[in-house]
């Protein structure tokens, strides 16, 4: 495939006079793409977050430029088109430059953005504000759950996506997870579990007991009593249970 395309790409005169090797551009794009995906891992290993920024955004500009110049043929386009696009970019840049200081800062000489400050204070863990409030912002399910809590409804809404409506770990959202979501209908699952462990996992996530981090912590959604109710509900899936 690539060899065939290469020949086509080199076949300039028929292609509006443009000598572009499209296959080569495509492969270059893929290599750049791979680097941008690997960037965060390299950044994490080396501890230099700047690497992630460069591989993410620097490469985005390079990729965009390759596509615009070679695939959209802007290189060979009349000057007027470049000016039109440039004008657009300038308008956008003016907008961003004009608004950015007011959005980025949460206070100035004569003003203070209380709502933004409160949002930051709520969202940063370890602050004076309690975790409930933080998660209220993030997870709307909080309200829904506490307004009229029932374990079955909550299971259907929150857990079933991965653990499946019947508890067999076959929810659509869990298909691609590795390891797979726990299968509550598997008798071998239960001997190693007690109420305390299940409660911990629901509240603090799989990592809390050294299990998969893909099991998210849901503690913000439930109070202690509701957590107990969820544990009792999940236990209903145990085929060996009473």
């Amino acid at each position: 495939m690539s060899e065939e395309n290469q020949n086509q790409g080199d076949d300039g005169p028929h292609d509006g006079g443009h000598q572009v090797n499209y296959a080569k551009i495509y492969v270059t794009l893929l290599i750049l793409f791979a680097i941008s995906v690997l960037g965060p891992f390299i950044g994490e290993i080396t501890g230099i977050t700047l690497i992630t920024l460069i591989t993410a955004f620097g490469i985005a500009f390079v990729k965009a430029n390759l596509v615009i110049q070679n695939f959209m043929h802007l290189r060979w386009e009349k000057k007027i088109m470049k000016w039109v696009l440039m004008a657009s970019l300038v308008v956008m840049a003016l907008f961003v430059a004009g608004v950015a200081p007011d959005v980025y800062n949460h206070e100035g000489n004569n003003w203070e953005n209380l709502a933004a400050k409160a949002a930051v204070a709520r969202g940063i863990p370890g602050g004076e504000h309690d975790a409930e409030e933080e998660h209220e912002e993030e997870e709307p399910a909080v309200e829904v759950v506490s307004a009229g809590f029932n374990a079955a409804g909550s299971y259907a809404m929150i857990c079933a996506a991965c653990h499946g409506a019947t508890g067999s770990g076959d929810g659509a959202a869990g298909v691609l997870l590795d390891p797979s979501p726990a299968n509550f209908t598997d008798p071998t699952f239960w001997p190693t579990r007690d109420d305390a462990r299940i409660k911990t996992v629901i509240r603090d996530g799989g990592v809390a007991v050294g299990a998969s981090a893909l099991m998210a912590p849901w503690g913000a959604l439930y109070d202690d009593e509701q957590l107990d109710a969820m544990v009792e509900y999940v236990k209903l899936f145990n085929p060996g249970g009473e």
Partner: protein
Amino acid sequence: MKPIATTRSATGVPTGRLAVWWLLASEVVIFGGLLGSYLMMRLGHPEWADAAMHTNTWIGATNTFVLLTSSFTAVLAHQAAEKGDGKKAAGLLVLTIGGALTFLAIKSFEWYTEISHGYTITANNFWSFYYTAAGLHALHVIAGAIIMGFVAWDAFRGRELQRVELIGIYWHFVDVVWIFLFPLLYIAK
């Protein structure tokens, strides 16, 4: 008889192509404004990192690959059209439409997972931006796929081959927008 605008060209750029570039110039402001706003808010709100953690990098990466590949088939379609091979151009456009549909299928799966976990458009400002930006982009993907269907239909019969380039330019722009959305929403966490 074609409308006079089809053949008239005061700027030296064919009218159709001129129109596509004008359209894209307006799109630059639309998407640029949206992404610029996102960036400003993100820098001012470090707590967004908490929410951004939950986007799935691998799904985003797969979709990036799909769009890059569809851009490649779109430019090959243009090349075929330049050579007057309408049938081949149509075939390559159909492949590009396939890319669009794959992208949308993956996106639906992704959104389904997120929404079922409570990460909806009203969850907080991060998710509002996430669904607005990716949603507006997805609408462009849908529009592009539909138009490409019409262009491919004509191209297959050897008609209006210049349109293959026009839809291609639009499609590459949709790709370029995603090239920026990908690091903004999925990589910079």
